[in-house]
């Protein structure tokens, strides 16, 4: 009887010359130390004004899936929502083809992208005022991408794409972002905050922009939701912009990403 070809199920895999486990653990410890230094540096650098969703870490979006503390635990509940709802089931992973860095500042080099397993990097971004360190990853989030880029003259841009179990979870998270943004704008240092609703040009199902300025710095956040995904774009720069124009300015920059988020819509692209 002829051998089945291609012989996918009977392949003899190569034998690899792998380093001992102790060396891998050592590398992991080095990695942990580097991450701690990076996270602390980022927290100190952004502690003053960043209007960021700490509540996302503390617990958001009721009805979400359990914490997926890694890139791909093989359980159906963490990959596709069990209650599909209109247009479901909802995509629970960020597709490889969705480039969250599209349109980002590149003056300081290519943005660094972190995944769900880069817990420390995500924690450093999810802060408001003084950095708050909490265990675990955002409950209800099944996948995420965090991109951090440095621009010219000390500007910085963070983008956080969060995937929830369903649009209700994403919408609840977005509402809490806005609530937290308001609290962050009530600082003691004479900061001024403004919110612009329904940012034109964002192309999202929900969108709003938040701007807070203090001294020479302006922190801007554009929040959008498409289906069960939320994108938060945070820019810190020395350029003062009114809330209305900031919304449109940010919307233009993130539009390629928002367009790609159509995969999370009820009627996906």
């Amino acid at each position, binding site marked *: 009887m002829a051998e089945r070809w291609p012989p996918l199920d009977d392949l003899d*895999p*190569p034998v690899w010359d792998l380093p001992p486990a102790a060396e891998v653990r050592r590398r992991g410890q080095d990695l942990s130390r580097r991450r701690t230094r990076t996270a602390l540096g980022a927290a100190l650098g952004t502690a003053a004004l960043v209007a960021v969703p700490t509540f996302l870490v503390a617990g958001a979006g009721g009805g979400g899936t359990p914490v997926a503390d890694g890139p791909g635990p093989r359980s159906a509940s963490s990959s596709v929502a069990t209650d599909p709802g209109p247009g479901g089931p909802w995509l629970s992973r960020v597709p490889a083809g969705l480039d969250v860095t599209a349109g980002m500042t590149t003056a300081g080099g290519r943005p660094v992208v972190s995944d769900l397993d880069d817990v420390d990097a995500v924690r450093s971004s999810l802060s408001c005022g003084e950095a708050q360190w909490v265990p675990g990853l955002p409950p209800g989030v099944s996948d995420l991408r965090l991109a951090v880029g440095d621009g010219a003259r000390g500007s910085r841009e963070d983008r956080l794409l969060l995937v929830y179990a369903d649009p209700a979870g994403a919408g609840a998270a977005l509402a809490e972002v806005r609530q937290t943004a308001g609290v962050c704008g009530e600082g003691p240092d004479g900061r001024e905050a403004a919110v612009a609703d329904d940012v034109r040009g964002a192309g999202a199902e929900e969108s709003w922009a938040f701007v807070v300025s203090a001294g020479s710095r302006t922190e801007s956040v554009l929040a959008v939701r498409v289906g069960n995904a939320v994108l938060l774009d945070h820019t810190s720069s020395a350029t003062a912009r009114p809330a209305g124009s900031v919304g449109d300015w940010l919307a233009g920059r993130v539009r390629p990403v928002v367009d790609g988020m159509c995969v999370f819509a009820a009627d996906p692209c």
Partner: protein
Amino acid sequence: MGRPREREPMDEHDFDEFYAASAQRITSQVYAMIGDRDEAQECVQEAFARAWTARRSLAHVQHPEAWVRTTAYRLAVSRWRRAVRGRRAPDRALQGTGTVAGPSETYVAVVEALRRLPEAQRQVVVLHHLADLPVQDVAAELGVPVNTVKTRLRRGRAALAEILGDDPPPEGGPGARVVEECRRG
């Protein structure tokens, strides 16, 4: 064997067992996914290093092996990695000499053929046929519906058969040509 206890972070012994039990096959699977031996080995090593770092979180993950495999694959395809690969010195302590026993001609031919498939089809073929995951588990790992996996599997297998031909390489079909191309590098 080798799987860390759930709800309790791995200690060194657990990790070493987990690594010994799964590193070889994960490296082979990632190699099949990306078609680059050195990159596969490096990414899997880094994924295991991250697993050690994240062992508290990993204790709550149902399938740590899937976690490592996915992390390694993401590392391999991430733009960040491609950007920094050229300027970061490799960790010499983690560098082996590559493979102890080179992959068979058939394995190389299949990997070379897999490289010609769209990424989505390649992933499901590797996870289902080389990692022996049921279709449901492949769907869960990739975050796509089961029917999507089945469709990609069907198309991927058809494409592989087209590339490799209907007969094993020694009979001189297109698969033999792939093997020959691989020999020439």
